[in-house]
């Protein structure tokens, strides 16, 4: 059993699969963005080359920061995402409940944001700590909306927290997104995921032209590579989580596998479109948006779900 | 060119040697009168301070302020001549016109003119020069 679990965490659907998929989708992201901007875009192996190159570069450690935290944060972040990917993936692809339920996934994803902030504050750089502060504030903003969004499928499936149960309910009763509350929650969820993945317009913490990479400013070499892998892994974890919660069904035939892949691509392309048509918002605008609009909308969806609409 | 006549009527007593060219009026002003003339030009006539030029001649240092009257395209250039080359000092306009702060700092740095009453008299451009650059635009320059 432990052998199987280890296989699941390290290879499929955990680290290796998610990272590999992330590398491909990272390319899709850059390519689609480039096409948006009338450019040709990078070649297929670009993200892979970037990571391979970073692994061979020199690692510079910070002088004034907390060194062990500086090194531990990216490794822990990678592990966190691999675990989250295993739980989501095992439920979605294999129909198995591994390791925990929805609550665990949510905690792991929150932990990732905390690790980004920790890594940034360990660097002892003004921009990095400012970015870390922003990361935490953004977490405050989107977490509430995201929690409420995740509640909707839980309520619809009869208050069940296990991912496999939610999937099973959807296979019987139709996808959550088919109901009004589910659709509303899905839209809010898409925006919350945009913020969680720190994609424009919510790339407030990393803001290339303001904070020069924010929490990641001092990272170089392999440690930066770990962060980059984590970032592209999110491209696998979050869309699959959304699909699992709202558009689910364990794929049993080849047609369903292709269907799942298409759903996944659609979600990714939606995220990329939102990314490319918006300027970066201010932190207070983001907070205002999530608390005044997104969270109430998600709350309405929850109420509707309780009423069974 | 009504502005020019009005200016000469009001401030004629404080104006020294005049060079009058189409659209440009250069005139000498004593150091003590500079602030009055500048206040009249900036506040009353609504001129904009374009910039100031300092240069070294055989007789001394000259500081020329360039005031532009935008509505008519007329330039008023009060010129202060400082004869003491070794220790040039003059009144600063920066407390009155914020736009004069940088240019006066620059003139002080490049030509060594001391502006009395400047809110922030420190070098603007070459503060960290390794060989201690001193007044590169003076004729006895040894950069």
């Amino acid at each position, binding site marked *: 059993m432990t052998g199987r679990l280890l296989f699941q965490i390290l290879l499929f659907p955990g680290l290796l699969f998610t990272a590999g998929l992330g590398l491909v989708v990272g390319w899709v992201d850059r390519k689609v963005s480039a096409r948006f901007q*009338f450019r040709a875009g990078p070649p297929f192996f670009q993200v892979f080359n970037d990571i391979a190159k970073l692994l061979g570069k020199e690692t510079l450690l910070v002088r004034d920061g907390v060194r062990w935290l500086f090194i531990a944060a990216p490794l822990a972040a990678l592990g966190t995402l691999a675990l989250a990917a295993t739980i989501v993936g095992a439920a979605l692809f294999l129909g198995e409940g591994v390791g925990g339920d929805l609550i665990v996934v949510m905690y792991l994803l929150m932990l990732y944001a905390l690790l980004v902030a920790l890594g940034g504050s360990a660097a002892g750089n003004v921009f990095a700590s400012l970015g870390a502060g922003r990361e935490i504030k953004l977490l405050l903003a989107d977490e509430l909306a995201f929690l409420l969004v995740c509640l909707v499928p839980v309520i619809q499936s009869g208050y069940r927290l296990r991912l496999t149960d939610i999937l099973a309910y959807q296979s019987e009763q139709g996808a959550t997104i088919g109901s009004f509350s589910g659709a509303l929650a899905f839209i809010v969820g898409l925006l919350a995921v945009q913020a969680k993945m720190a994609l424009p317009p919510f790339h407030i913490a990393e803001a290339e032209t303001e904070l020069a990479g924010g929490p990641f400013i001092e990272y170089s070499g392999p440690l930066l590579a770990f962060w980059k892998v984590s970032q592209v892994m999110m491209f696998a974890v979050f869309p699959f989580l959304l699909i699992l919660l709202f558009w689910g069904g364990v794929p049993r035939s080849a047609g369903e596998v292709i269907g799942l892949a298409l759903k996944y691509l659609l979600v990714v392309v939606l995220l990329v479109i939102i990314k490319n*048509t918006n300027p970066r918002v201010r932190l*207070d605008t983001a907070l205002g948006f999530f608390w005044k609009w997104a969270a109430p909308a998600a709350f309405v969806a929850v109420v509707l779900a309780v009423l069974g609409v | 060119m009504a502005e020019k006549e009005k200016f000469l009527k009001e401030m004629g007593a404080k104006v020294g040697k005049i060079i009058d060219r189409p659209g440009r009026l250069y005139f000498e002003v004593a150091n003590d009168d500079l602030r009055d003339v500048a206040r009249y030009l900036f506040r009353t006539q609504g001129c904009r301070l374009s910039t100031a030029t300092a240069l070294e001649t055989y007789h001394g240092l000259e500081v020329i302020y*360039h005031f532009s009257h935008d509505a008519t395209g007329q330039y008023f250039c009060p010129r202060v001549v400082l004869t003491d080359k070794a220790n040039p000092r003059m009144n600063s306009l920066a407390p009155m016109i914020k736009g004069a702060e940088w240019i006066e700092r620059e003139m002080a740095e490049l030509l060594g003119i001391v502006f009395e009453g400047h809110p922030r008299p420190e070098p603007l451009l070459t503060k960290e020069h390794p060989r201690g650059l001193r007044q590169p635009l003076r004729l006895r320059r040894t950069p």
Partner: protein
Amino acid sequence: MSRTVIPIGPFHPLLEEAEYFRLTVDGETVTDVDLDIGYMHRGHEFISERKTFTQSIYLVERICGICSTSHPLACVHALEDVGGIEIPPRAAYIRTMVGELERIHSHLLWLGLAGHFIGYDTLWMWAWRYREPVLELFEAVSGNRNHYGMMRVGGVARDVSPDVIPRFLKILDEIEVKMEMVAKAAADDPVLRSRLKGVGVLSREAAVDYCAVGPTARASGVATDVRKDEPNDAYGLVDFKSIVLPNGDVYDKLVVRVLETFESVKIVRQCLEKLRTTPGPIRNDVKEIPAGEGIGRYEAPRGEVFHYIRTDGSNRPVRHKVRAPSYMNIPTCAASCKGIALADALITLAAVDPCYCCTERAVDIVDRRHKPLKLDLLELSRRKTELLRREIHG
């Protein structure tokens, strides 16, 4: 929260140039701005006093790569002011045309960079894509994309032949259509508007106090425009509006620049029409510059460029004072940045279109193993320039 000093620069992606802003922030609110310049100071005024007048024109061209017409133009205006030199009408139209083309490319450049600074790379790419045809026009006229070397005392260096004008007009029409699209995307985007409206306000009083110039002043309701105030070259002969807006925020600065771009297209079009019907020489021969002093100015894309030249009858200036527009505009940040959020402060710093190079005017070695590329890009580039020339010159 405690006060932190945020150093923006000397090397920061917000600035293409090395500059140092010290922002004191309280939490996320900026309480004080301090500037430390001098990273670009190259001593232009010092070098210029060692060059002849003709050399000076090329030197001042290299003050700034984006205003590489404005500085030479102001410089020759100053020399013409010293000597009382007239220029032929054809030269006046060519000067105005080149100057306005530069305004188009500079404003599009700023629009793109502003987009980049607020994390809207799509806008950046779009604006810069449509800026390329303008640079192509420059390449066809002068042979170089930037640093055109067009200005001479008493006229211009190169002529625009009459048979290229229809083609120029066609390219201009295309550019205008594309620009309208980009301008719509920028000015009407609700997210962008909410991001920029009411941000970084520079009041009219502060603009006057800091003696701001150009779009920065005009967006704050100060009507200063050298093209109207002192219509030299062909500016007195063409029809255009000077855009003045009242609010002084970043959004108004954007709108001023966008509207100005369309005015520039109008001016270029008129100049081209006039060039068809105005034959004649393109420069008067100037043998010597008498002793005296002169002021030359020109409305660069960022505001008034000011050159003062003192001569003594020889062929070198005694004193050559250069004042670029950003020199007056950058200090206004101290007024417009106080008390606003950090994220806004950065776009406000960028909104004056700062150009530090201006402000401070101040053989490949490849080892033998290198395999030659299949395409020699340099050769291709040369061929492109030739092609452009031949196409345009018939």
